């Protein structure tokens, strides 16, 4: 009974999220802090997810092909009101130093890291998505608000360092961020598209702005900083106890100042189309004359400005409860900025051996809704660490799935001092 209560508690507060410190590392470390003499850690991950877009619909955008009407209608049928979509791709290399001491403490050392990442997210209402994907044929006599449409994309490089605790891998670090690209598109009220009941009038109200950095260049278009940190602590440590590892962390929390070549393009106007004059057609004008003239009427104003924008950072908590020799229960919660939702995760880890973890979790939030994740971690010969994880395994197999992700982590743990007892 006590186990069930504990499990329920972890469902509420704990979780496992990739790019957080491996549980295998945590459990391999000890209170001496001298288990490892440095770790080289390489990570890469990519995620595409949404609350409404299915893999069936997204797949043609990735591998090419036709987006079928069935796929679009299926997505529309599954939408409630506001749909969220997003994705990210990140790579990071981090080296945990293996010196004997730092600032006189044998428990502390430095880590350095470099990384590169891209992030994008957006939102759109059901009607706006229906209009853009299927056309206005089903919207005669109605005005479709477009102000729900927002999107943001940012790309950056980072280089930084930090201090970590060799016993728990708790760490705090700062990175200098080189902003590569920033794009943000927002439509404001009263942006909308109106089709009159008998389709003799189309009206597009467009009000919004498009904020973007200058064209990508090697030296970047902005500079800023980010902070990563993690606090790991353990309760009832020991193999014969109900050990609980807890983690509090922040990731990629920072800001970038995009330079003065960045541009804010504003637009606010109305375009009404009622067709060409019939007399013009009888006098030889083309029947389709003028239908492509919208670009000529797009009224914009732009100015070059420098501005600060936050990186897409997050806060997270995680707990791993040692259920028995081979089973761990996990729970976690990660908080993002809008439009992404909080990501709640709970899962189970099975350890057939002490150097191997097979995990499974269910989660809800971030870009999408419910998902079923799986992962595997393996510490080979107490030196090579390999981890692979997906936050939504069905995304690879079912066309109705709404998220696909893959994370890969490869590490080399230098000169293990403590003999592994596997």
């Amino acid at each position, binding site marked *: 009974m006590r186990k069930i209560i504990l499990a329920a508690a972890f469902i509420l507060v704990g979780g496992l999220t990739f790019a957080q410190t491996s549980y295998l590392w945590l459990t391999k470390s000890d209170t001496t802090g001298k288990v490892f003499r440095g770790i080289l850690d390489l990570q890469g991950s990519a995620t595409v997810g949404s609350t409404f877009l299915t893999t069936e619909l997204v797949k043609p955008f990735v591998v090419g092909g036709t987006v079928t009407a069935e796929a679009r209608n299926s997505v529309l049928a599954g939408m409630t009101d506001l749909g969220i979509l997003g994705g990210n791709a990140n790579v990071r290399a981090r080296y945990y130093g293996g010196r004997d001491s730092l600032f006189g403490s044998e428990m502390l050392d430095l880590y350095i890291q470099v990384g590169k990442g891209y992030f994008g997210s957006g939102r759109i209402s059901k009607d706006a998505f229906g209009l853009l994907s299927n056309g206005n044929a089903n919207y005669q006599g109605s005005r479709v608000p477009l102000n729900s449409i927002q999107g943001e994309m940012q790309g950056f490089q980072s280089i930084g360092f930090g201090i970590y605790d060799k016993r728990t891998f708790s760490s705090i670090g700062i990175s200098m961020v080189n902003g590569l690209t920033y794009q943000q598109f927002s439509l404001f009220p009263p942006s909308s598209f109106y089709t009159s009941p008998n389709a003799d009038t189309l009206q597009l109200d467009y009000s919004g702005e498009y904020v973007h950095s200058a064209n990508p260049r090697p030296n970047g278009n902005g500079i800023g900083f980010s902070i990563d940190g993690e606090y790991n602590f353990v309760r009832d440590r020991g193999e014969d106890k109900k050990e609980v590892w807890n983690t509090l962390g922040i990731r990629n929390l920072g800001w970038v100042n995009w330079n003065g070549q960045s541009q804010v393009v504003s637009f606010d106007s109305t375009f009404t*189309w009622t067709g060409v004059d019939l007399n013009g057609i009888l006098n030889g004008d083309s029947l389709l004359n003028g239908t492509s003239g919208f670009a000529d009427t797009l009224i914009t104003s732009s100015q070059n400005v420098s501005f600060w924008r936050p990186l897409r950072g997050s806060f997270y908590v995680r707990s791993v409860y040692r259920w028995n020799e081979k089973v761990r229960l996990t729970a976690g919660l990660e908080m993002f900025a809008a439009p992404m939702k909080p990501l709640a995760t709970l899962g189970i880890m099975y350890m057939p051996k002490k150097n191997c973890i097979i995990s499974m979790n269910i989660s809800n939030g971030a870009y999408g809704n419910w998902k079923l994740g799986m992962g595997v971690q393996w510490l080979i010969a107490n030196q090579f660490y390999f981890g692979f994880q997906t936050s939504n395994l069905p995304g690879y197999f079912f066309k109705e799935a709404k998220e696909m992700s893959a994370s890969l982590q490869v590490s080399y743990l230098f000169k293990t001092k403590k003999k592994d007892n596997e």
Partner: protein
Amino acid sequence: MRYRVFACLVVTVSLLSSCKKDEPTTWESNWVAPLAHGRLTLSDLTADNGYTDNAGVYHLYFEKIISGFGTSDLTQIPDTNISQKFVVPITGGPFQIPGNTAIITQNQNYSVETNGTGLRMVKVKSGQMIVHVKSYVNAYLHPSFTLYNVSEVYGNNTDIDFALTPGSASAPTEGYYTIDMSNKYVVLSGTSGFDYNKLSTHLEIKTEQNTTADQNTIYGQDSVRFELLMSDIVIDYAKGYFGNDTYSFNETFNLAESANMPTGLLELDQASFGFHVTHKMGFDGKLKIDNVMGLNTYMNTGVQLTGGNLYNPFFITRSIDNGGTPSVSNYDINLNEGNSNITSFMGSLPYSVLFTGSLQLNPFGNVSDGNDFFYSDQLTEAKLVVDVPLRLAASDLTLRDTLNVEVTTDAVRVSSLTLDIQNAFPMEWKLNLTTLGGAIVATDLNVPSGNSIDALALASSSTLVIPISEAQWNAIKSEGKLIMQVISNTPSFPQLVNLYNSYFVDMRVKAGVVLNAEIQ
């Protein structure tokens, strides 16, 4: 262990490379958009070739200027080069001639080419005359050349002086003088005042005033050559005798170009035809119309207009010059339903009208004694006028038009056209659409007759939906054209109905559009 690591790498690379995009992303969406709208009235349908009478009935009205008798048709002064040698009237030599001594003095009438007419006076609108003199005399010469009655003031002369250094037979000395002839009167009646085409001049050649005898050595028969070059002379006013030549005219004017003349059966009422001459030139003439033929090239038919005194020759009497303002005389031939076949002529729906005839000048000879005249800005004019009140009956009256459909993108495919029509005309229409290659897009789409009562326009409503298949659209797009055929029938043909200018057709054209988006 190495095997395990290698296996991990293979799996990793495989996963990362699985996202390669081999073909573009495409999707279709369905849009509906207005293409065209507007109100068509009789003015629009007839390209404004019409007017409304007091009863509100619309009239088709065509007016065609048959001929402005151009000045170049009557007379002109072509580019002319007149050259003459003047010889010192002595023999022997050498003679030492002191300064300011006349060695040649002569009056001369030059004949001016006028293309067969006899001119006594012209006023030049533009052009030039170049006087060129060559001296083969070993003396300082001062030729003075006078053009009598050539000036911007009628009756005044133009004097030209040259100063020539000594020349020789092998190396003559030359002088040029260019006269701008614009707005100059040129009297061509010669020294007698009764000749035609004679330009009267006076030449005097002296030795230069401030020279001595030993500077001027002259032999008998030494010569000086004069040339007059007239170029680009445009006549503004002419007086003389224009002869009695006959001028023919053969003109065709196209009715369908301006009014989209239909085909089919058309009963008309009270059409009229007019041939009007406004004579403002100073000559008599005999005018004869040889043929007025309505041609329907589509039906390959022709109907000759007959009736009245259309083909009888008639005389036009010379205008009188009232101090620069010629009198005007008018000559009219009017044909109507009562005295001609004009109704059936127009009922044959001619695409064009052929008009041939002739004009003989001065059929009674030079009765004005050389006082024919014209002002270039007041010429005789003849015009045809056709007036057709649209009181008609139509049976399968077919209007055919070609619509331009220029599409430069493959991203758009029109899948349907919807026509919302309000028809106030008292006629039923059938609409056919075909591609340029003849493939049928839509056929026999019916637009019911309007419910108008006399001039009170009351429209009937109808909606025509025309599905367009992908194959049809591809044909329309590649040809860039769509042929529209409208077949009209009035009720109870041949019972006539009036078409009032208040009648209209309101039309809205919508298109169902399939948008093919593609992302590479």
